[in-house]
């Protein structure tokens, strides 16, 4: 019993040391436990703009947290010479790079390229290989049947040839996603590198004229990265910007849209009562004058 009482006092320094050591250890463990993951995406949009998107997250257990302010260098084909860009990740742990015109010769020289990501002098990613590819999207309509035709071409030996077995989404671009045009979620190109999807989304709301933005999108393909083709078509229902609901004078509207009945009631009561009050105050003043 006695010993137990004294224990904390006697051993305080040791205890502190112990606590310190433990906290140091756990911290290091935590740091080790968390794994930094760097991912690279290649995106080709409408066969014109291409860019690289780098993502950096910390994986701790099952939790992923984006890491900001991480610096990387991206090279084309050979590390150290063909610098594409110096990147620093933003709050979402992402960074983006375009291929600069200075690398035109290197880019044109081959139909396949390797992108190398380096952090300081360490190669973080070295096996990210992309084959040049193109995607097209066409629409055709006859007898009430509307079709979307998408095709993918890849470059091999400096020639464009059809790319078969490429999986993609074909549909309408919506907030945060693509609403598939047909019944399937994904479609695959045939040996001619082409696929045809019947557009089955009747009466889909479009923009104010009824336009829909159709897209064909290959997402993170092993060979080609992401490919996107977009096309506008007048296949939707025209929708008007309708603010009637929002413009109502209701109890939940702003103070600029107070219901008339409430305004009327409130103001008639306020003016009635305060009118009388002001009258009474004037009476008091009158009394005062009488006495002066």
């Amino acid at each position, binding site marked *: 019993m006695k010993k137990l009482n004294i224990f904390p006092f006697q051993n305080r320094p040791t205890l502190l040391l112990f606590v310190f050591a433990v906290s140091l250890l756990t911290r290091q463990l935590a740091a080790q436990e968390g794994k930094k993951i760097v991912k690279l995406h290649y*995106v080709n*949009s409408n066969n014109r703009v291409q860019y690289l998107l780098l993502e950096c997250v910390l994986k701790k257990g099952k939790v992923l947290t984006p890491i900001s302010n991480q610096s990387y260098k991206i090279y084309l084909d050979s590390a150290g010479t063909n610098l594409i860009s110096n990147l620093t990740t933003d709050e979402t742990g992402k960074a983006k790079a375009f291929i600069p015109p200075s690398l035109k010769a290197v880019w044109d020289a081959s139909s396949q390229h390797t992108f190398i990501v380096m952090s300081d002098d360490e190669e973080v990613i070295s096996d990210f290989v992309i084959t040049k590819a193109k995607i097209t999207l066409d629409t055709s309509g006859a007898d009430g049947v509307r079709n979307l035709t998408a095709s993918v071409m890849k470059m091999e030996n400096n020639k464009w040839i059809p790319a078969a077995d490429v999986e993609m989404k074909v549909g309408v671009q*919506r907030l*945060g*996603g693509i*609403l598939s045009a047909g019944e399937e979620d994904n479609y695959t190109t045939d040996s001619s590198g082409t696929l045809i999807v019947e557009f089955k989304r009747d009466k889909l709301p479009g923009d104010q004229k009824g336009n829909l933005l159709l897209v064909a999108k290959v997402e993170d393909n092993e060979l080609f990265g992401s490919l996107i083709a977009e096309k506008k078509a007048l296949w939707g229902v025209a929708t008007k910007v309708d603010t009637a609901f929002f413009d109502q004078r209701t109890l*939940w509207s*702003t103070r600029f849209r107070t219901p008339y009945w409430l305004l009327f009631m409130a103001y008639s009561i306020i003016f009635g009562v305060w009118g009388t009050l002001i009258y009474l105050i004037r009476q008091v003043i009158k009394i005062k004058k009488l006495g002066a």
Partner: protein
Amino acid sequence: MKNNNNIPRRDFLFTGLLTAALGGCNDKKNPFAQDEVVLTGEKVKLLSVDGEVIEIDKAFLKPIPDVPHLTNAEEREGIPGKKFVMVIDLARCKNLRKCQSACNHMHQVHPGQNWIKVLGMEDADHTAPYWQPTTCMHCDEPPCVKVCPVDATFKRQDGIVLIDNERCIGCRFCMAACPYSARVFNWEETLMASQGGSEEHHHHNSGPTSVAHQVKGTVGKCDFCPEMTRQGELPHCVSACPNGVFMFGDLNEDTVTNGAETFRFSELIKDKAGYRLMEDLGTKPSVYYLPPVNRNFPYESGLEKETGDEK
């Protein structure tokens, strides 16, 4: 920045060379959602797939191009022509609470508080329990907005119910009025402020933030991530859920998506018998639920989280 001259309206997006350039700059970009991008006026040269040299505005060098900073009045109006909805599929939820941690992290919600809760529900003694993620319902006839004396909480035309933390007087009437207990209060110094950022202008994201951020002595709640939707992105909880429980979208587009799958809203609600909470109160929520039938996970699989987390 001379924003005014440099903001292209969406209508220009499909004309000329810029069309392709813009179209390619944000793969998740939805031209219907992202009206405006702040252009810097500076151009960068880049190589196209064909090896051509093309020019593009420097703004697109960012993973997500900046959208213009909005005035308080503009932010209060919301995005014209939008009407955001969320569909929560109860059959897919196993109480992982990834939505919660993502939301808490991105909004720096005070420890212990949550803008999104995953409630273990059991409606009656012999009915089956289920997990119910619960956000603010963004009611179309919001009782919380009705009672606010200073317009500090308000309904935008895109359906979002927001809080102006620079105006809120902290009377907490809205908390009493909300039947869904969606609101939390910043009882003490907020995380943002205590971590050194100034309460006034700090926000987790570079988006327009003149309204939504947290201030001591004012209320907070799920805000449907307006800075994300303005950029055409999905709210954090939606993208964080590995089971695809949350589907978010625009009612005017009749589409909801969880990122991986995209559904036509009206069909989804019809096929799966979607419903809203406490319909009898007349609050007209913007959040729909799909009943917990043909579940992906048994209820019990979520209990683990429950005991570990409540402490």
